[in-house]
C-alpha cells in the first residue's frame, strides 16, 4: 500500500475507520453513563481507587470506557488520513469542513478531560499545563481557561464538558458530515469484542501518586517533547493553529498546493508519532532519557500489566475495616497483609498506607501484579526519595542525609587520598560514591567504603555489629522479639516466596547504640571506647571467653576493658548528645566530621546560665519528636545549642537554673553539673578544650604497613564485585594511652585539643612488582575519643608526660646542676626511618610544619610552646600541684613566674 499517492478506501472487515470510530464513541458514551454511578466528582481519585478494589464490574466498565476512548481517537485519526487520501474533504461544504477541522481540537479536549478526571498526580499536572497554555493566549486566555477548565479547586466544570458539552458536539458533527450516528453493526460488534478482551485483561492506568515519574496521556507525550524545547510554550499554540489552518485551507488549494499541504500534515503526523514514542517509552524521571537496557527502565516506564478482573472473588469477605483512606486512596495490600503487627502509630498502614514505603501497585488484586516494582527493603538512600523522602513525608530530611557526612564520608575520602599522595591537602569536599580507580580510590573501595549509610541494605534484619549502611534504616529500624523470631523462621524456610510475615519491624526513634556500633567500632573506635573497650591483637583462642575483662565481637576482634566514658556509665546513649541535625546533616556539605558535629561539652555543662528556648520555638520536626517522646515537664525550657542555635530537646532547665538531661532511651533524668571552679578561674588553661583534661585514654595505633598489589583480587564495597587491585594492611602496634595535645587554629581562634597518631605508617604502592615505591608517613589526627571521665589526672599527667607534647612514650628527665636546669627525653620506642620514635609526632624540642596532620588547621606545639609547658613541668618537680604557688599560677602565671626566687632554677632562658 502506497501511502501518499494512491487513493484507497481502507476498510477493516467491511467497515471503514470512520465506522469503527463511531462504534467506539458509542461504546465509550454508554460505558460513561454506567461509570458515572460509582464515580464521585467530589472525591474522584478515592472513588476510582474504591472501584478498582471493591467493584470489579465498575472496574471492568472503567476499562471499557478507557480503551474505547483510545480506539476512538486512533480510528478518528485513521479516518482523517483515509479521507485525505481520497480527497474526501472536497465533498464537504465549507462551513462543515470548518467545524470538522475544529472538531480535532474538541476530540483531543474530550480525551484530555477524561484523563484529568481521574485526578491522580499525572492528571493534576496535565490540568496545570493545559491551564497555563490557555491562560497564555492573549486577551482571552483567562476567560478560555475558566470557561473550559474551571476553577482550580474543582473538576466539576471539566466533568460537565466531558460528559455533556463535548460529547454532544462530537455526535452533532458526526451526524452533520456522515449522516449516521450509529455506525455499522459489524464495526460495533467487532469493537465490543476487542474491548471486552482488552478490558478483562488490562486495566486502565491510575498513578499511585508516589511514583516520581509524571507523564501525560500517550497522545500528548509528543506535545510534551515539543513543549520541552520551547521556553516560551505559547509558540506550541501557534504551531497547532498553523496546522489547523493548513487543514482548513486544503479543500481550497489547487492540485500541487493541496498535495504539498497534505504532505506537511503527513510528515508532521509521523514526526509527532516519533516524538510520542520517545516521550512515552524513553522518558523517565525528571525528563531523563532512559533505555530499555537500563536497570530502572521497568520502574520508570508504564507498560500494561496483564491482570484479569476478579469478578468471581468473594470480596464481601474482605474486612473493610482494614481499609482506610490514605492520601485520598485505598490500597489493596491489606487484603493479604491486613493482620500484620509491629508498626508504630506514625508508620502504620492506617497512617501512611503500605505503598508509601514499599511501592508496588496499590490497585491490583493479584499478588504478582500487586508486587510489581515493589521495594522489599525501602529506606536505602538510593531510593529513599521515593519512600521516606516523598513530598508527603520527609523530603527535607532525605536531602539533608544525602548531603551529610555519614553518607558522603568526605573526610575519610580526602584524608585517605592526601596520605596516599593523591591530593595536595586533606580538606576537599568529596563523596564516596564518586570514587574512581586510583590506588587511593581502591584503598577506600576495598577497605573503607562499606561504612557509609548510602551502602545498600540488602537483607532483612536489625542493625547489628556487622551491619553496614542501610540509609534511613541504619538508625530507624527495630525488630521486636516476635519479629526477630519470625525472621529466623523466614531465613530457615525453604519456600521464601510464599512466606507470609505477621510481624513487621518498627520504624521508630528508638536508636540504641547498637545502631552506631558496627561502623563506629572501626576507625576511631568511638563506639567501643565509649563502653571502655580497647582493641587488642589477641585472637579468640588467646582468651577465656567467660573472662569479663575481654569482649569478642562478631567479626572476631578481641577487646579488653580499660575504662568507660562516664556518660556511658550513667546510661546515656549516643543520641542523647548527638542530635538529628548532626546525624542526618543540616543540608550543608562538610569536609570533615567535626564541622558537622553540633554538640559541645559547654552546652550541657554550662558556666553560668545557658541560653534557653521554649516549646513554641522548636521547629516542626523537634515538636513531633517531643510529642512522640511524651516528656511532660511543666513549662519546659530547653538548652539552646551554642553551635547550632537549636534546642536540645531532651534537656530542661528549672527555675533554679539547674540543667537536666532526659535520656532518649529510657527517660531517666540526669543532673548536668556546671563547670567547676577550676575551669572557670583557670586563666592559664583558657585555650584548652574540655577533653584535654577529661579524656581518660585514647587508642594509639602506630607503625602499620600497607601495600598495594595490583594483580590480586579484592571485594569492592561500592560496586559489590571482586575486582583487581588489593590493599593489604599489616597492623603495627596499638595500645591505649593518654592523648597528645595540639594547636587547632580555626577561624583565627586557637584552641588546644586532643590528637592521636592517626596514620603513622609506611606505604608501598607497588608491592609485588620489581619497583619499590616505599613511602613513610607520620600524621596525627584530631580525636574525640569518647572516654570522658572526671579528671583524676593531675598536672603532672600532662606537663611531665612526653606523649602530651607529641614526643611519644618515654620519660622526661629534669636535672638541675650548677644553677642550670635541663630537660631531656628518653623514648620507649626505637627510632624509625625519619629518626623519630615510632609513636612520636615531633622530635624532642623540635617541631614539624609540613604534612603533620590530617587537617590543615592542626599543628604540634612549636618550640616556644614546648618550652613553656616543660617549664611548668619543672616547677612541678618542686612544688606540689595544690601548693599556693601552683594554684596562683593558674590565675596569673606571668606574675608568679616573675616573682620566683633565685633558688628557682628553670630550664630555657626567658
Amino acid at each position, binding site marked *: 500500500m502506497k501511502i501518499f499517492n494512491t487513493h484507497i478506501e481502507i476498510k477493516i472487515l467491511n467497515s471503514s475507520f470512520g465506522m469503527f470510530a463511531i462504534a467506539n464513541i458509542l461504546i465509550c458514551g454508554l460505558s460513561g453513563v454506567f461509570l458515572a454511578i460509582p464515580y464521585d466528582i467530589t472525591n474522584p481519585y478515592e472513588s476510582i481507587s474504591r472501584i478498582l478494589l471493591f467493584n470489579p464490574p465498575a472496574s471492568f466498565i472503567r476499562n471499557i470506557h478507557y480503551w474505547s476512548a483510545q480506539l476512538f481517537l486512533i480510528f478518528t485519526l485513521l479516518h482523517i488520513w483515509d479521507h485525505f487520501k481520497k480527497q474526501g474533504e472536497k465533498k464537504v461544504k465549507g462551513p462543515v469542513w470548518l467545524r470538522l477541522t475544529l472538531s480535532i481540537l474538541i476530540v483531543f479536549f474530550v480525551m484530555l478531560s477524561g484523563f484529568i478526571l481521574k485526578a491522580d498526580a499525572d492528571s*493534576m*499536572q496535565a490540568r*496545570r*499545563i493545559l*491551564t*497555563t*497554555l490557555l491562560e497564555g493566549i492573549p486577551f482571552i486566555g483567562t476567560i478560555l481557561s475558566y470557561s473550559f477548565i474551571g476553577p482550580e479547586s474543582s473538576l466539576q466544570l471539566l466533568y460537565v464538558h466531558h460528559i455533556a458539552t463535548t460529547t454532544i458536539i462530537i455526535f452533532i458533527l458526526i451526524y452533520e458530515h456522515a449522516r449516521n450516528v450509529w455506525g455499522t453493526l459489524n464495526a460495533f460488534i467487532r469493537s465490543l469484542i476487542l474491548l471486552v478482551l482488552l478490558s478483562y485483561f488490562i486495566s486502565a492506568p491510575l498513578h499511585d501518586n508516589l511514583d*516520581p*515519574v*509524571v507523564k501525560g496521556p500517550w497522545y500528548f507525550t509528543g506535545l*510534551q517533547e515539543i*513543549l*520541552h*524545547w*520551547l*521556553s*516560551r*510554550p505559547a509558540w506550541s499554540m501557534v504551531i497547532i493553529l498553523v496546522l489547523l489552518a493548513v487543514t482548513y485551507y486544503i479543500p481550497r488549494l489547487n492540485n500541487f498546493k493541496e498535495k504539498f499541504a497534505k504532505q506537511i500534515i503527513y510528515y508532521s503526523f509521523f514526526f509527532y508519532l516519533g516524538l510520542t514514542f520517545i516521550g512515552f517509552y524513553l522518558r523517565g*524521571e*525528571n*525528563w*531523563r532519557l532512559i533505555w530499555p537496557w537500563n536497570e530502572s527502565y521497568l520502574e520508570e516506564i508504564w507498560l500494561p500489566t496483564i491482570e484479569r478482573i476478579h469478578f468471581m472473588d468473594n470480596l464481601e469477605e474482605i474486612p473493610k475495616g482494614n481499609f482506610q483512606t490514605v492520601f485520598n486512596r485505598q490500597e489493596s495490600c491489606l487484603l493479604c497483609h491486613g493482620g500484620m503487627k509491629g508498626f508504630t502509630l506514625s508508620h502504620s498502614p492506617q497512617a501512611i498506607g503500605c505503598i508509601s514505603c514499599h511501592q508496588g501497585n496499590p490497585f491490583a488484586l493479584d499478588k504478582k501484579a500487586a508486587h510489581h516494582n515493589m521495594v522489599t527493603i525501602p529506606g536505602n538512600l538510593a531510593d529513599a*526519595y521515593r519512600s521516606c523522602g*516523598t*513530598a508527603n513525608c520527609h*523530603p*527535607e*530530611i532525605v*536531602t*539533608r542525609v*544525602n*548531603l551529610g557526612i555519614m553518607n558522603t564520608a568526605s573526610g575519610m575520602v580526602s584524608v585517605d587520598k592526601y596520605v596516599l599522595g593523591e591530593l595536595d591537602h586533606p580538606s576537599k569536599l568529596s563523596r564516596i560514591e564518586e570514587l574512581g580507580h586510583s590506588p587511593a580510590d581502591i584503598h577506600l573501595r576495598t577497605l573503607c567504603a562499606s561504612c557509609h549509610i548510602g551502602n545498600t541494605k540488602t537483607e532483612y534484619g536489625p542493625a547489628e555489629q556487622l551491619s553496614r549502611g542501610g540509609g534511613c534504616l541504619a538508625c530507624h529500624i527495630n525488630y521486636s522479639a516476635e519479629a526477630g523470631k519470625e525472621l529466623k523462621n523466614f531465613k530457615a524456610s525453604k519456600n521464601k516466596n510464599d512466606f507470609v510475615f505477621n510481624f513487621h519491624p518498627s520504624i521508630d526513634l528508638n536508636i540504641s547504640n547498637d545502631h552506631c556500633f558496627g561502623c563506629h567500632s572501626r576507625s576511631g573506635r568511638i563506639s567501643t571506647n565509649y563502653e571502655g573497650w580497647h582493641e587488642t591483637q589477641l585472637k579468640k583462642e588467646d582468651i577465656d571467653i567467660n573472662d569479663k575483662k575481654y569482649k569478642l565481637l562478631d567479626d572476631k576482634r578481641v577487646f579488653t576493658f580499660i575504662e568507660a566514658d562516664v556518660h556511658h556509665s550513667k546510661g546515656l546513649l549516643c543520641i542523647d548528645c548527638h542530635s538529628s*541535625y548532626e546525624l542526618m546533616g*543540616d*543540608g*550543608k556539605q562538610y569536609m570533615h566530621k567535626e564541622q558537622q558535629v553540633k554538640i559541645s561539652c559547654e552546652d550541657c555543662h554550662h558556666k553560668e546560665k545557658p541560653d534557653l528556648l521554649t516549646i*513554641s*520555638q*522548636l*521547629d*516542626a*520536626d*523537634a*515538636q513531633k519528636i517531643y510529642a512522640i517522646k511524651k516528656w511532660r515537664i511543666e513549662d519546659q525550657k530547653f538548652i539552646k545549642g551554642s553551635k*547550632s*542555635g537549636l534546642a536540645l530537646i531532651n534537656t530542661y532547665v528549672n527555675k533554679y537554673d539547674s540543667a537536666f538531661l532526659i535520656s532518649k532511651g529510657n527517660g531517666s533524668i540526669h543532673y548536668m553539673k556546671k563547670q567547676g571552679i577550676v575551669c572557670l578561674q583557670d586563666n592559664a588553661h583558657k585555650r584548652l578544650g574540655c577533653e584535654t583534661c577529661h579524656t581518660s585514654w585514647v587508642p594509639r595505633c602506630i607503625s602499620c604497613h600497607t601495600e598495594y598489589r595490583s594483580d590480586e583480587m579484592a571485594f569492592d564495597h561500592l560496586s559489590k564485585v571482586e575486582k583487581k587491585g588489593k590493599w593489604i594492611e599489616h597492623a603495627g602496634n596499638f595500645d591505649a594511652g593518654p592523648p597528645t595535645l595540639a594547636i587547632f587554629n580555626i577561624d583565627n581562634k586557637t584552641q588546644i585539643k586532643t590528637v592521636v597518631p592517626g596514620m603513622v605508617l609506611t606505604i608501598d604502592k607497588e608491592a609485588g612488582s620489581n619497583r619499590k615505591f616505599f613511602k613513610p608517613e607520620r600524621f596525627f589526627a584530631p580525636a574525640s575519643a569518647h572516654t570522658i571521665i572526671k579528671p583524676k589526672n593531675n598536672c603532672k599527667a600532662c606537663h611531665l608526660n612526653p606523649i602530651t607534647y607529641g614526643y611519644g612514650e618515654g620519660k622526661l628527665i629534669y636535672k638541675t646542676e650548677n644553677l642550670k636546669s635541663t630537660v631531656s627525653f628518653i623514648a620507649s620506642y626505637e627510632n624509625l626511618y625519619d629518626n623519630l620514635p615510632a609513636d612520636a609526632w615531633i622530635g624532642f624540642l623540635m617541631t614539624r610544619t609540613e604534612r603533620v596532620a590530617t587537617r590543615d588547621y592542626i599543628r604540634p606545639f612549636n618550640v616556644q610552646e614546648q618550652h613553656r609547658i616543660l617549664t611548668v613541668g619543672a616547677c612541678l618537680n618542686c612544688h606540689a600541684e595544690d601548693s599556693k604557688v601552683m594554684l596562683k599560677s593558674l590565675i596569673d602565671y606571668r606574675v608568679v613566674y616573675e616573682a620566683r626566687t633565685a633558688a628557682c632554677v628553670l630550664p630555657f632562658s626567658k
Partner: protein
Amino acid sequence: MVLRSKKYGMGKKLKEIPANLTVGISFIEEVIVVKESSGDLKMFSSKCPHLGCRINKMDNGVITCPCHGSTFNTDGSIIKGPAANSLKELNFELNETGNYIVEINT
C-alpha cells in the same frame, strides 16, 4: 488552607504556613519554603514558570520540576530549562497566631 482576606485585598489568595518548619526545603502545596540553618526564610511559588506544573521534589540537591525537568537553585534561580525564568518569590509575613501568611497568587 487557602484564605481570601479583606486585609490583603480581595482576589489575593493566601496560605498559612507554620512558622516552625525544619531547616531545609519544604514543599507545601503551592509553596516551596527554603529555611536556612541561620533561620533565614524564603518562600517561592511551586508553580514552574515553564508550564505551571507543581514542583514538589528535589533531585540531587536541586529543586526539580517533574514535568519537563527544569531545575532551580534553593535561591529560586534557574539552573537548567526549559523554564526561562526563576521561581517566583512570594511575599509573606507573620500573623497574630505566629504562623506565616504567604500570598500565593497576585
